[in-house]
């Protein structure tokens, strides 16, 4: 069973479905065509994996998350979370998951402790992980006794993470979870994710910070204008993408133009630059006899893969 599965999941805003429910929506949408927020999304998130969900603003990430939580009703297709239908079984699903919205809004007139107590009570499950999470994120009991309105952006985000995970959910949906966290807290958060993953929990992770997705996610999906443009293992995605090479040498330059996987070869005075795609073995074999002085192979970055997908999509 998949933790999350969507089949042809589609959402148009301003779409007319149902009689009474859409009366107000109809009035608003009567002069404008429906907005295609998500178009036929097919993804399957395996149990126990950390799944990255990437895309720029307005690409359909938040719409997807809200469909999974039952906040939105699909125009077409269906979604299943933990084997349950996102429309019919929305309440049961929410009993078993934790959710951190992007830029979480909290009740400012409560203390951190009151807020966590209240949200824990609403969850209907004991806050078995709260102490551990607070300790890892350095949220002291003294801090939790202060009003939320006095918290900094980072403190609010820490409380947001705790409220999402304190009841030890089977699935966590985290939208931009490290927003506002300093590098030390980001590291602490990644360690929390590692622990959860080791315990078999599933994390659905949406982020703009590609380096952190690259660090923590097993697989990534990339969406653009409401459509899925890639869904792959992070490692495979990185392995497939081009890496830039700078090589300095003495004597005759190596012949790289005909080597498999090598492109963009440019020669300079005592150096050559090129790009390699896939395995580096053919490249290494080609330079075996060259008098190499220095060799730099830039690591593959998810950011470049992400931009490549977007460039490719732009040109099609």
């Amino acid at each position, binding site marked *: 069973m998949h933790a999350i599965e969507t089949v042809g999941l589609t959402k148009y805003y301003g779409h007319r479905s*149902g009689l*009474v*429910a859409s009366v107000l929506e109809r009035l608003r949408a009567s002069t404008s065509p429906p907005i295609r927020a998500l178009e036929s999304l097919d993804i399957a998130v395996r149990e126990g994996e950390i799944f990255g969900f990437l895309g720029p603003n307005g690409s359909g990430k938040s719409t997807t998350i809200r469909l999974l939580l039952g906040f*939105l009703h699909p125009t077409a297709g269906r979604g299943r979370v933990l084997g349950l239908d996102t429309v019919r079984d929305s*309440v049961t699903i929410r009993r078993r998951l934790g959710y951190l*919205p992007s830029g979480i*809004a909290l009740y400012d007139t409560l203390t951190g402790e009151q807020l966590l107590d209240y949200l824990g009570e609403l969850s209907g499950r004991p806050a078995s992980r709260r102490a551990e999470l607070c300790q890892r994120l350095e949220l002291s009991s003294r801090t939790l006794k202060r009003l939320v309105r006095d918290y900094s952006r980072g403190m609010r985000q820490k409380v947001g993470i705790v*409220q999402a995970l304190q009841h030890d959910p089977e699935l966590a949906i985290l939208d931009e979870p490290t927003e506002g966290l300093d590098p030390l807290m980001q590291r602490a958060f990644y360690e929390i994710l590692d622990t959860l993953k080791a315990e078999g929990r599933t994390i659905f992770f949406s982020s703009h910070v590609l380096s952190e997705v690259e660090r923590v996610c097993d697989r990534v999906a990339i969406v653009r204008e409401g459509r899925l443009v890639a869904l792959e293992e992070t490692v495979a995605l990185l392995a497939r993408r081009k890496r830039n090479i700078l090589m300095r040498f003495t004597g005759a330059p190596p012949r790289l133009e005909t080597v498999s996987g090598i492109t963009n070869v440019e020669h300079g005075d005592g150096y050559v630059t090129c790009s390699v795609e896939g395995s580096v073995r053919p490249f290494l074999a080609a330079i075996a006899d060259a008098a190499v002085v220095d060799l730099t192979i830039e690591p593959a970055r998810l950011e470049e893969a992400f931009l490549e997908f977007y460039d490719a999509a732009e040109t099609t």
Partner: protein
Amino acid sequence: MNGALLRHTWRLQRTKLAIVSIALTVWGFLLPVIYARFGSQFSALMQSGMLPKQFARFGGGDVFSLAGSMALGFIHPIAIILTSVFAVGFSASAVAGERQRGTLEVALARPISRRVLYVSLLAASFGFIAISIAALLAGSVGGATFAGVVKELAFRNLPLLWLNSVLLFGAFAAIALAASVSFDRLTPALGLTLGIVIAMYVLEVVGSLWPAAEVLQPYSLFHYLKAKAILTGSAAPFDVVVLSSVILMAILWALVVFPRRDLAAPS
């Protein structure tokens, strides 16, 4: 209904509830005292013909009898504004305000259906109104006692006055909550409800002051609270039926519309 949500709502509103209740108690206290001190003078002034007779019928209340003065207290703008803190203000912002602030999705990410959320907020709203009206009544009884006119009061009619008043302001609360679940932002929900309350109040007041406009009064919900008639033992059960019907229709609207609505990301 969700107990945790209900307790949380009460905790957030308790200071406001205390202030409104104290203010209504003081207001309720004043009118029987005014009647006891100046009632006969006002009566003489009216009988002299210096003031139009319609002024003696404002909202079905007057200051020439204890029942009339208490009734005036219920229909006076001061009482309406104070009670509307919860009937309109709290109810209109209960969903739309939380949605605008972004806190609604934090609550709805928990295993609570929208209907349960709505019913919990409706129960809280009715509770606040019930306490506010009880405070107003308690103030009136206190004022009558203080002024030494409490013997004129038929205590057996007070529960019906309380119920009818709760139903009137409960109807506005149900309308406000129905608006609240129908809009993404507070302004239209609050604006719509305030517009309805003000329009109905104008219809009632104009109808009570201008005989030719009496025909407009049945279109106002305020017309279905006849506090003086209740206190003098001539209550009309139809009023309760009308107010209950409005409440039921507003609840039905909210229960149908809210679960079917899309809750897009707060902007």
